[in-house]
């Protein structure tokens, strides 16, 4: 760069080539054939629609796109099958190990199960290869084409047919090529230049641009920071979504009601959900005379009321299932209760309201096998499939269920076993949400039969059966 011409550096445009227009598709094909026959190699055709035979006339090289698509498809196929084999079939203690998970009893390596995903991945990658490969081979997206600056070239979208002979072609010689194009039937020939580049931006613009770009980052960065740090100030959010709602919060005044309170006391005669479990033997497995009955429900609690009618009585729900804010104190008491329970408080007989029958026993067996056997095992020995799997993984957090035939369990009163099913113990969760009280008792009944089966002797058999047994060899 010379020191005198700092602003006068207009670069000379480079010649792109010669653009020749033709009357129609047949003329275009004929001309393209003659031009390529004459030895020109860098020739491109432009037309408003796909002209059949133009590829052959231009002697265009066969596209490599099918090979790209094939390779992409093959990649998808191999990636799909390898990924699944690794993920489902190879498990170890290393980082990013696969997870050998048993699904529907199928083998870890099972080709039929892998085929759908493999198939989809093959299709996906083939489609990507075809679509993006086509764009890439066509050098698309192209934001600007120098030909667009030719006024005549605008006709290419309606009825213009053009050939472009590239200036980089070895045989290109402007005057001769122009004459040749006219001789093969071009109705008009013009020269086209490359887009001129090389104008330098004033140095200050860079600084301004960098400043604006940096400033533009500040707001998103600040929002990002506030969303990932803790602060006692209210959160800053762009869109308020559901944060501000038109509603009263607890203990707030309201002018709508005469007593000035937004929170309304329950109206007289309201029965809380889950209340009415007066049969404490059936619902809680404790004796009615137990002094801890109140802790399990049925007890009344008073709370303040300002509606002028005096204190309102409300039955509280001890079970956590319908807990609302008012029931929390009683729930805490219920949680603490079993630990303090005296053994004598549990019922030792089945509740009187429960009809003991062989149907109940069958029901109990069915429920046990559904809900309990997965961990406890079908015999209750504490060797269910889940337990076996957990112990096999050696995760260390699994507590093996106590054998239901252990002395400590066998001697438990039925009420306590019922309570364990209801509220859980140690790692075992409570099942009151899943199993009705009657079914829980049915399980207790079946459990007794199970325990009996493991502690039976020949003397328990009827006399005739015992005789039969003694004659067996």
């Amino acid at each position, binding site marked *: 760069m010379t020191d005198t011409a700092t602003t006068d550096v207009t670069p000379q445009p480079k010649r792109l080539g010669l653009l020749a227009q033709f009357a129609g598709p047949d003329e275009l094909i004929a001309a393209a054939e003659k031009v390529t026959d004459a030895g020109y190699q860098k020739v491109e055709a432009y037309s408003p629609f*796909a002209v*059949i035979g133009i590829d052959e006339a231009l002697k265009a090289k066969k596209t490599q796109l099918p090979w790209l698509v*094939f390779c992409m498809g093959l990649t998808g196929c191999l990636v799909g099958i390898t990924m699944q084999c690794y993920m489902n079939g190879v498990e170890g203690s290393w980082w990013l190990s696969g997870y050998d998970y048993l699904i*529907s*009893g*199928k083998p870890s390596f099972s080709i*039929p*199960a892998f*085929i759908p995903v493999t198939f989809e991945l093959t299709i996906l990658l083939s489609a990507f290869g075809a679509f993006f490969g086509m764009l890439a081979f066509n050098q698309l997206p192209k934001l600007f084409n120098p030909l667009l600056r030719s006024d005549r070239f605008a006709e290419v979208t309606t009825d213009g047919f053009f050939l472009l002979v590239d200036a980089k072609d070895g045989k290109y010689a402007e005057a001769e090529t122009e004459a040749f194009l006219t001789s093969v039937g071009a109705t008009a020939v013009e020269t086209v230049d490359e887009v001129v580049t090389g104008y330098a931006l004033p140095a200050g613009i860079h600084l301004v641009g960098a400043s604006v770009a940096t400033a533009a980052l500040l707001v998103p960065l600040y929002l990002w920071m506030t969303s990932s740090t803790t602060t006692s100030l209210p959160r800053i959010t762009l869109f308020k979504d559901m944060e501000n709602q038109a509603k009263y919060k607890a203990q707030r005044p309201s002018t709508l009601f005469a007593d000035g309170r937004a929170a309304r006391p329950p109206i007289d005669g309201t029965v809380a959900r889950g209340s009415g479990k007066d049969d404490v033997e059936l619902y809680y497995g404790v004796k009615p005379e137990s002094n801890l009955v109140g802790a399990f429900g049925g007890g009344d609690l008073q709370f303040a009321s300002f509606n002028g009618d005096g204190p309102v009585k409300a039955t509280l729900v001890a079970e956590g299932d319908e807990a609302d804010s008012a029931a929390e104190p009683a729930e805490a008491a219920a949680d603490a209760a079993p630990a303090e329970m005296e053994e004598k408080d549990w019922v030792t007989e089945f509740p009187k309201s429960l009809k003991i029958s062989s149907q109940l026993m069958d029901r109990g067996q069915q429920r046990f096998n559904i809900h309990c056997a997965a961990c406890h095992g079908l015999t209750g020995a504490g060797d269910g499939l889940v337990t076996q799997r957990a112990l096999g993984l050696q995760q260390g957090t699994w507590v093996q269920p106590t054998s239901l035939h252990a002395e400590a369990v066998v001697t438990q009163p039925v009420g306590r076993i019922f309570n364990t099913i209801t509220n859980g113990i140690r790692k075992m969760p409570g099942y009151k949400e899943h199993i009705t009280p009657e079914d829980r008792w049915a399980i207790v009944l079946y459990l007794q039969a199970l325990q009996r089966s493991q502690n039976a002797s020949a003397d328990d058999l009827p006399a005739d059966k015992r005789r039969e047994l003694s004659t067996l060899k």
Partner: protein
Amino acid sequence: MASLVNADITEIRQASAGLAGAGFLPGALGAALLGGAAAIGFAMGSWEQFVHAYLLAVMYVTSLGVGGLFFVLAHHLTGGRWGTTVRRLAEITAGTLAVSFAMYLLILVLGVLAGSDALYPWVNPDMFVGDQIMESKRPYLDPTWFTIRSCVYYVIWIAMAWTMLGLSTRQDSSEPTKRARAMQWYAGPMMPIFALSLNFASFDWMMTLEPHWFSTMFGVYFFAGSFEGFLAWLILLCVVLQGRGVLTQSVTTEHYHDLAKLMFAFVVFWGYIAFSQYMLIWYAAIPEETLWYDIRQHGVWPFWGLALAAGHLLVPFLGFMSKAVRRNKQLMLFWACWMLAMHWIDLAYVILPQVRAEGSVAVTIVLGLIATAGALGVFLWAWMSGAAGKWLLPVQDPRLPIALSYHNH
């Protein structure tokens, strides 16, 4: 490229009336082979093997006919143009269904109605006793009702095929545009009737070989194989006819390319359907569904199934995936023969393992080959006498010029 529309015609476009006579030789040879297979089966005490082989043979030629019918219907329904040059060949192929019907009638009369359970076990009323699944199917699997249904399927197809063939041949002499519209109009209502009847036909004829078993996909499975088999037959037919100077100008590389593309699509579709049927049953693992595949997990059949997966899907998938192969007449002749063989292997996999009698599987397979060769001879006679004296090109069809100057992009 030069258009063929105004070129001098050097090809043969009309079949000679003597073709029916020339077809007598393969027909007689085919009938002899069928009779021979029956005699072998009877003499060797392999009657049950023979009837299964015979069903296979009849199903094979029937499938080519229904494939042809579908081609004609789909072509009219979609307003297709490229296929106009080979449409008449497809119409004549669909016309052979009448002969397939005659061959299937033997099964109905001598087997189902005569009370022989050599082929369909449910013909024996003892099969239903004490079997809950069979009990519920009893009204459907009634021999008389089955016979009526089977006849209805064939009659529907033959009526459709002859309607199309009749309109098409009348188009050659008068009112071509009106006839073209009429064919297009008929194709609409015919298509759903065709789809339903083909579904139930394949349920009845092949699924009831194992009466406990059911697969809702079975009809589509049979259809996919049939159409693919027909396309292979059409390519083979074109090459053979062109070797005798017939339609040498009209059926161009472009048409071979299109037929090959369509056949390729149906190779993939067949694989998709066959695998879907297998995978759903494999995954659910319900005994009354898996029993069909369980039979095919014993003896020679697992290898047969693997050969099918490879030969009917994987090998041809890679084999004529390339455009260069599809545009090569000689290579496509090879692949057409390959697919016709694989279509036979496919139908044999469906039918032959259902033989309950003790005995060598090789006998069943050999009988199946002889019977199929025989049925193909009869089919060939049916085709030749169907073509005799007819134009092999719908010469007056308004879409023919477009079909002749058609190019793939």
